């Protein structure tokens, strides 16, 4: 055992008093090998190693073992009594695309028009967002900035949350196309502007028309994808190519149980297994979903039941129900700044049925699998990126979540953020101890 201790100053209020957001710089690449010693390792796949050691080098994990035996002369991070997790992954959100919801100029998540597979969230992802550091300091290290709106919203990428610009941030580029599935369910009345309600027949007709249009569109897109050199370049069809050869995921926002069935069958008819997003009614048709092997990115657990008659805790229990049905599920949080509460969304599932490790998987390994990045991240296993967080306590519980250290691809991240800076500033004003 070596005697020298590498001192990480992940966050130190003492030195940040005069800093502002602008000085929270992305970390430099990992130089030496680092070992995290003595903590409880939550691998992310259900496995827990008490008093274990994680070693990583050049951004990759090279060893995950029980005990605290460490080779000579490598940097050590002491984590005795602490909890070590893979960095959390926030799927399907607007972090970095929206800065202030009510200010139009800061909203870049929704393009006009209905079919926009070609618009790419990656290039709008703002690494200077003041919000990103507040999310990452709660343990989320990867995110999927996602276009919204329309029928086909656009193409998303996975980013890591510590970067100079979007090129640096890109973790997996242009990996999914997002859909908002039309619904067959019509609200009771067109209340908004006293609008007339459609009759049942009109409603069915409209829905079928939408489906036919979609079907025609997909047929053309598929034909386009099958030619090496199309006669005329079509940016939209071009963006959809990946759906047919498996390089892009189809992520489909759909909630109603009938719509889910229609959507799944539709994508299957084009050889695509979709990822469902939201899928409020999934609990009603778990058999169907299992038969079709459809993974689900669930709507946040901290939400209200859709119906008055539902179990009041239904959104809390959804994860357990879907998990027990053998489905692959990931947890999400709505919005952008709210991503910092993602770990607690998983925590709620653990309070209502899942084991804590199962709940952890819904924001780490499961998410990585669903997003197709499980070869790179999602668990603390040898060969994967060193995306690691260390928390003082249980990171899925807001009462104990306290991230003291985080690594993205082995780089030690600055966990400071503008809110901590303001905290420090005003604590000084009143002579309060900021801890």
């Amino acid at each position: 055992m070596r005697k020298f201790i590498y001192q990480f100053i992940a966050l130190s209020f003492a030195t940040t008093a005069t800093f502002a957001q602008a000085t929270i710089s992305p970390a430099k690449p990992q130089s030496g090998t680092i070992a995290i010693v003595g903590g409880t390792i939550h691998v992310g796949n259900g496995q827990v190693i008490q008093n274990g050691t994680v070693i990583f080098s050049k951004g990759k994990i090279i060893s995950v073992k029980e005990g605290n035996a460490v080779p000579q002369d490598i940097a050590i991070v002491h984590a005795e009594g602490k909890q070590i997790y893979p960095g959390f992954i926030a799927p399907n959100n607007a972090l970095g695309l929206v800065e202030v919801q009510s200010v139009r100029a800061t909203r870049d998540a929704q393009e006009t028009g209905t079919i926009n597979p070609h618009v790419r969230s990656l290039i709008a992802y703002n690494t200077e967002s003041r919000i990103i550091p507040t999310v990452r300091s709660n343990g989320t290290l990867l995110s999927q900035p996602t276009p919204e709106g329309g029928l086909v919203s656009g193409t998303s990428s996975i980013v890591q949350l510590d970067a100079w610009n979007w090129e640096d941030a890109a973790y997996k580029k242009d990996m999914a196309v997002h859909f908002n599935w039309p619904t067959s369910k019509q609200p009771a009345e067109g209340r908004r502007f006293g609008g007339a309600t459609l009759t049942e027949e009109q409603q069915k007709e409209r829905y079928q028309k939408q489906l036919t249009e979609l079907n025609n569109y997909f047929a053309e897109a598929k034909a386009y994808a099958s030619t090496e050199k199309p006669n005329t370049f079509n940016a939209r069809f071009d963006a959809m190519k990946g759906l047919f050869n498996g390089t892009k995921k189809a992520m489909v926002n759909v909630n109603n149980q009938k719509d889910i069935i229609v959507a799944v069958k539709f994508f299957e008819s084009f050889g695509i297994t979709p990822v469902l997003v939201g899928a409020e009614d999934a609990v009603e048709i778990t058999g169907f979903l299992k038969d079709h092997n459809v993974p689900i990115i669930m709507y946040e657990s901290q939400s209200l039941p859709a119906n008055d008659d539902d179990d009041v805790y239904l959104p809390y229990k959804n994860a357990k129900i879907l998990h027990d049905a053998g489905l692959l599920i990931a947890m999400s949080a709505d919005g952008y700044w709210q991503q910092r509460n993602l770990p607690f969304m998983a925590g709620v599932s653990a309070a209502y049925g899942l084991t804590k490790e199962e709940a952890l998987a819904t924001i780490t390994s499961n998410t990585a699998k669903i997003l197709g990045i499980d070869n790179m991240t999602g668990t603390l296993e040898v060969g994967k990126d060193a995306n690691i967080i260390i928390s003082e306590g249980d990171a899925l519980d807001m009462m104990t979540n306290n991230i003291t250290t985080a690594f993205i691809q082995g780089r030690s991240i600055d966990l400071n953020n503008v809110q901590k800076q303001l905290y420090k500033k005003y604590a000084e004003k009143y002579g309060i101890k900021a801890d």
Partner: protein
Amino acid sequence: MKKTLLLIFTLFTFFIANAQETYPVNGSFDIRSGQFAFTNANIVVSANQMIKAGTLIIKDKKIESVGTGIAIPKGYVVIDLKGKYIYPSLIDAFSSYGLPDAPRQSFSFRGSQPVFTSTKDGAYAWNEAIRPEMKVNTIFNIDAKKSEELKKNGFGTVNSIIKDGIARGTSSAVTLGTESANEVMINPSTAANYSFNKGTAKTDYPQSLMGAIALLRQTYLDASWYKNQNKEYNISLDEFNKQQSLPQIFEVSNWEDVLRADKVGDEFGKQYIFKSGGDEYQRIAAMKGTGGKFIIPLNFPKAYDVEDPADAKSVTYAQMKNWELAPTNPAALEKAGIEFAITTADLESSKDFWTNLRTAIDNGLSEQQALKSLTEIPAKMLGIDAEVGTLSKGKDANFLITSDSLFKKGNIIFENWVQGSRFIVSQMNVKDLRGDYSLIIAGVGNLTMKVGGSVGAYDLNLERTGTDSVKVKGTLSRNGDLVSMFFDLKKNPKGDIRLTGYLDKSEPITFKGEAALADGSNTNWSASLVAPFKEKAKKEEPKAKIVLGSVIYPFVAYGYTEAPKQETVLFKNATVWTNEKDGILQNTDVLIENGKIKAIGKNLAAGSAKVIDATGKHLTPGIIDEHSHIAISRGVNEGTQAVTAEVRIGDVVDGEDINIYRQLAGGVTTSHLLHGSANPIGGQTQLVKLRWGQTPEQMKFAGWEGFIKFALGENVKQSNWGDFNTIRFPQTRMGVEQVYVDAFTRAKEYKAQWETYNSAKNKSGLTAPRKDLELDALVEILNDTRHITCHSYVQSEINMLIHVADSMGFKINTFTHILEGYKVADKMVARGIAGSTFADWWAYKMEVWDAIPYNGKIMHDAGVLVAFNSDDAEMARRLNQEAGKAVKYGNVSKEEAFKFVTLNPAKMLHIDNKVGSLKVGKDADLVLWSDEPLSVYARAEETYVDGIKYWDIDKDADQQKTIKSEEARLIQKMLDSKNGGSKTQRPSFTKPSLNTCDTIEENYQTQTN
């Protein structure tokens, strides 16, 4: 009416005289005295009296006499009604007969320019919804078509009401006669009418139900002031005053509104007659408690289409139960001894009237009561009982002739006489032609003609026996005494034979006439009855006993059939979060009794108490949400004016909101229900305990000082409301300050006026100042009897309001939201202002850009009283976790953090003497948690309010099972109903609307709760 009857709907109008004295006549006068005598009838004089084989004599549109053994004078048309019945014709107390179609309701939305005051020409009220000047007698017109429709249903008199506006003016009682408006008007001013709906009024105010209530209350005050002033002439107020001596009818849409209207009535010494929504059975005791009479509709919901189990999920438990129980509503009112009239109002089709009335009778309404509710009761309500309602001398000759008891299935209304004028609904004494005839057609031979089917829809069969036997179907139609038939015998001869003829003799029935054969030749025919028709004896199926579910309180899923009771409970061996000096006690017992905390200590004796083993569990005070918008009916914002201090959330508390139950499941026991943040001075707030199943009044926190909502920043200056909303002052933070300065300046002047007036020893010659509900509330603030909770975000405006308060001499109790409280904590401490904030919200709008999750921590450490609130139905049910975030962000101790959602809000609301901590003598509002209450893993297992367990995680599981099985039963019943031929409706999918500060109702009038 059944179509199978022989119906002759031709208009038989006997113009009896032209008694319109004042009208000139073109040509000769045609005066008839309309003398009729109806004999041998069963005369139902009133619901309590029937005369058998009686005589009714009418003359000059009036009843001359009714009884038995009456000699009929000469000169009377005698109509023998042997075996038939005479009833007083029915009265609909709530109709819009003879009035123009109601124009579309106006509603404002964010895409139109605001309208502040009346756009109507003339010296009327400032608000178009106050329109007592509208009088039915000035615009009524006979509507012959509608009149016929009503008469077919048995009505003879209606009360016509202009269903538009909050104060709607007077209604008129008219008969359904069709001669002239002058003739039919029997009471031009039956009642003054009211509702909570602004109708077509273009003025933006009111935008919410609470605004409508405030407007009505202020109108009563203004009208009272108007009597003794000489400052203005106001037609509306003048008329309003004149109408106060009339009966007062208040139209509402549900039972909660009945209570709301009744409260207004109590305040101003009025007892309304309630035209209600048909759901009174859900709170029958409370309805009885109003002391009011009712006019109820029969608009029973149709069964839902539930064949598809996926679609059926869109039908709520409450909708299903209401479908089953709504038809019991009239019976429930009868049983409770409430006086009520029945109206056809709100029916989808007038054809539903008899179907639904009979359904109500099947569900327990007595026939006697049904008749009363359609005759005597409405007659009395409308002050027309001297004219109509019963059959006695001198009353209008308004009566029905029926085949049977009026309410019996299969009864036929033959005639409906209105003011001595006959209207035939279906012909009396129509000969039944059914039977077997011997038909002889000259040149063709003898046939057996069988007439079957039903009277009015005959079927025809012809038979010939012997060598060339035939058996064919034919067609028979009848018009009075004329008949026509055709048939094809197929052989001897072939081709259609067409007969036309007439009734020649009626004993036995004999027809004669001409026949046209297929070959073009003509001949004669005759037919006479040989065997009368024999009805196949139908087995009267014994009526299945109607199985009904129970009424639940509240009437939504998870409502209780019986209110949970106060319990004496001993919690053994819990970790007790006292919020008192004792801190968090391990292995401690708590005893509750009579709704209070009786004892806290080790090894307490159980006595008769129910013992709960709380080992490993945490017992805490109930959570108190300082800022909530649940359980509010139809609008949390009255944002149409910058100052709306007159509106009160207390007027619109809604106990039927499922979020009450959901929040009990999150450990919440007390909620402060706030007006929204659309204007600088919003409405008065209401503190409630989450007493699930109680009425709104019962939910209110007793002995609480009032609060009022203020708001600053982007919402009040309408920053995010779109391009049209740039007119209402203020549009900047600069303007906001001046709104306050102005409002409190006016309030001070107003206060001084009243002080001068009140202190004057001799008041003669003095007029009292106009009482102004808005200024009253501001004066209460100045007097420190009403406290402010102010929605606020950025330091500049917070600082501003502090200065305005200092200079105008009022106090700010709480800044709510206050996400930049950490910047002004010192100023708040200096003035004792509390801060009720969010744990970690930010970035959703510009004014929260500097929000930090350490806000609670800094304010707390700086000495501010800090709470975390929800402003959101979802967050409210996990406020314990939000408090947990104070531990995470800033390392506040667990004990102090938990006070952020319990004791501290109790202190802010000045109720910490009753709730907020576990202390002997305080209310037994407590929660038993599975885990440390600040943890994401903590589940609320039991929640008590006043020692009553309103939430129990195990009982909830049972409730879910009950709901499932009850829904299954109701679905079966609906399917049966559909298979039985009843009409159905599509399940409709409505997302429940959830309120936050920013919610503006698009149309408060169209919502149901």
